[in-house]
């Protein structure tokens, strides 16, 4: 594990102590089921501000389902049912007074496969501010978002070109810029680099390092080394089998990344990070 531990050892010192971490999300016994199938159960953890938190685990363990709870994207699936609680700055995300549209303004999402709209680069980034009625100069907002996503220099001369003419990595950064234009507080990233080549992946990871200064980031990844490279905190999920063979995801361990990868408390975690399974 030497190739991982060099970075980790350094980063372990960077985290503020527990007492001085600000909680953005407080998850309490969260479970999600689709019709009768329980996809996720009994998850409890806290997400801290300006941290990068990674969710790792084998496929089918519910990490994508979990991350979609944070911005109520599971609402779009009629058969999905969420139980338990997520508090966002003390407010129940699933409270009866809560409007999912407002939630998504504050908590943005980037998807696994880049999904730019079939419009121009400018219109992609401007979509959010236009639709949400944000005031101020649209051009300024677009430029600011593209700069934050480290894409401005590459596209500044062709903002009217179609978004689909960009490369995969550029499209994903465009999607990130699109999110940032809405000025959220939190960025959810569901395997943002898995569809990209290694160089584009590295750029996305570097971007995450920069963005965490201003945003709170949660990232789902199936790539352990990526988690080790970018995340401050890591949550490891796994799949359990029920009596009738149903697969349900559970949270096994949640701790500072350095600890997860060097001294995991649970044997299942250790098996996974050392590559014995998954």
């Amino acid at each position, binding site marked *: 594990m030497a190739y991982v531990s060099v970075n980790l050892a350094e980063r372990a010192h960077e985290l503020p102590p*527990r*007492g*001085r*971490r*600000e*909680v953005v999300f407080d998850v309490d016994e969260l479970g999600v089921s689709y019709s009768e199938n329980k996809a996720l159960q009994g998850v409890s953890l*806290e997400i*801290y501000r300006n941290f990068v938190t990674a969710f790792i685990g084998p496929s089918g363990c519910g990490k994508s389902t979990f991350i979609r709870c944070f911005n109520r994207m599971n609402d779009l699936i009629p058969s999905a049912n969420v139980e338990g609680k997520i508090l*966002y*700055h*003390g*407010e129940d*995300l699933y*409270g009866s*007074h*809560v*409007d999912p*549209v*407002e*939630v998504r303004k*504050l908590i943005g999402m980037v998807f696994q496969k880049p999904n730019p709209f079939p419009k121009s680069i400018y219109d992609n980034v401007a979509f959010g501010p236009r639709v949400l009625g944000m005031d101020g100069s649209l051009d300024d907002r677009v430029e600011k978002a593209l700069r934050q996503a480290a894409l401005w220099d590459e596209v500044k001369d062709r903002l009217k070109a179609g978004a689909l003419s960009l490369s995969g990595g550029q499209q994903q950064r465009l999607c990130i810029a699109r999110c940032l234009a809405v000025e959220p507080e939190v960025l959810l990233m569901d395997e943002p680099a898995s569809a990209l080549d290694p160089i584009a992946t590295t750029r996305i990871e570097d971007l995450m390092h920069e963005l965490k200064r201003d945003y709170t980031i949660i990232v789902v990844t199936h790539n352990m080394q990526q988690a080790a490279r970018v995340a401050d905190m890591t949550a490891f999920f796994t799949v359990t089998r029920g009596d009738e063979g149903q697969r349900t995801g559970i949270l096994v361990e949640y701790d500072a990344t350095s600890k997860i990868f060097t001294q995991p408390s649970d044997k299942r975690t250790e098996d996974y990070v050392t590559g014995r399974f998954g």
Partner: protein
Amino acid sequence: MATREAAAPLRLRAERRRWGEDVVKGVLALCALVSVATTVGIVVALFEPAIEFFRHVSIVDFLTGKNWAPLFEPSSFGVLPLIAGTLLVTACACLVCVPFGLGAAIYLSEYAGAKTRNTLKPMLEILAGVPTVVYGYFALTFVSPLLRDVGLPVGVFSALSAGLVMGVMLLPTVASISEDSMAAVPSDLRDGAYALGSTRLQVSTRIVVPAAISGIIASFVLAISRAVGETMIVLVAAGGQPNWTWNPMEAVQTMTAFIAGTGQGDVPTGSIEYKTIFAVGATLFVMTLVMNLVAIRLVRRYREAYE
């Protein structure tokens, strides 16, 4: 335990209720209701006068009488001649569309290359797009004289000339749906048979057609339903007098032709003649509805089997 801010103001409540969204949903649902209203309208429009009609005319006499003379004195309301006319024309249509529609489908599905299929299939659809009044004209001015030239004892109007042309019009319907259902048959079935040394004829007729049979039958049923409901070809070329006969060379009047002929005229509202339109219309509607439901059921069965 991490620190928490003092209870933050509720940020997640919408600024104001999004009533606009509800309005939109309401308007869209209203649009959808138009189709419901149409069905209700059709049912009411047909059955209310039809029921009144059957208070004056016994339904048994209606369905079994061989004399259709609603405007004569004494009037007679046996609908069988109209039904016979409809079925006669439909049978002639089936003579064309069933074998040749299936043949075209087999060709497109089993013999034609992708390029040929993609060119021929849309061209076949053109046949379905020609207005029916044009087909009626063609039946009257070309097919009818042609049949006479060939030596058949047909008059100017006949069930045969209308039926044959109708059959060609329905050929794409049979071909298209049959071809779809044959295309859905997995190629493994064919490959297995070919590997045993079967010829294309054998694979098509003994493997593919039986496997796709429910879709093929559905296409026949749908074609028959359309033949029964078709108006203009028969109005122009089949004849205008009800005729209780099984001879396709004779002129006949179909249910649809009767409705069109009577409905055009200035028949006084509420009279018994006026109500005949609806009685015959209701009969027609029930016949086609039953056939359509059967066809849809069959299509669903073949889709379930392979998808």
